[in-house]
């Protein structure tokens, strides 16, 4: 039991970050991970940076649709809805 409850090393903790954020750690492993974080500012900073990375990635707005591309797609729609059997 001492072996199982032994504290995580930082190197192991950082590899659990995604499982933790995805809610895929068992209760026991989650507790162990959170105990590590509580005592380790470095891994806490790391987790925080992963969170910030996710936020940053989520801010990449898609380009807006060019009017020419839009018109081309509307033409496609007209073509395939007018005469669906002949499509291709």
């Amino acid at each position, binding site marked *: 039991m001492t072996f199982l409850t032994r504290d995580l090393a930082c190197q192991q903790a950082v590899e659990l970050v995604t499982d933790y954020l995805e809610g895929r750690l068992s209760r026991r492993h989650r507790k162990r991970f959170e105990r590590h974080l509580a005592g380790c500012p470095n891994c806490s900073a790391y987790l925080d940076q992963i969170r910030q990375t996710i936020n*940053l990635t989520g801010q990449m707005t898609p380009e807006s649709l060019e009017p020419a*591309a839009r018109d081309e797609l509307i033409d496609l729609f007209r073509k395939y809805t007018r005469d669906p059997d002949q499509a291709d």
Partner: protein
Amino acid sequence: MVRAVGNEADLLGRLREHDETAFVELVEAYHTRLVRFAQTFVSSGPAAEDVAQDTWVAVIKGLERFEERSSLQTWLFRICANRARTRSGIDYRLLPIGAPGATVGRDHFDSKGAWIDPPEPWPDIDDRLAAATLAPLALAAIDGLPEPQRQVVTLRDVEGLSSQETCEVLSISEANQRVLLHRARTRVRAAIAPASRGGST
């Protein structure tokens, strides 16, 4: 972030009646996102545009057969993935995912697994200016990822799909999805870390 379409059932009903305004709504919301996603499979911009066009043709033709077991969004990205795979000619089922293993470089830790060079705290990068500096770095890092990682992180973190949707789109298991996501996020973080340190002004 991601623009969603309004009422999906309503939109689908209108599409099935060949309502052009419904199609325009869908295209406005998704076309450039599909192109961006297609780029994770095919190398060139024009090829990605073609894949997105193929996707729309398949969508128009498939409207009658679309069963609302998955969301419209999942369906769109899934068709796009399949079109892109067909075009690139790569059999993605044969691409190795690799075993889960260490992703944060070993050299950051000593023999006991403790940090040698702990992460330096970042300033608040939620700040707009900082985000403007860091976003291109994150984008370049994503572009440089191995394809499966790039596809997963694009769907999850750029497009905001759930893990279940991402698995459906890419036909991969939840466990594989998680391994790929973990590696991708680890690498994106590492790519922006140097610029985040010591402020980004």
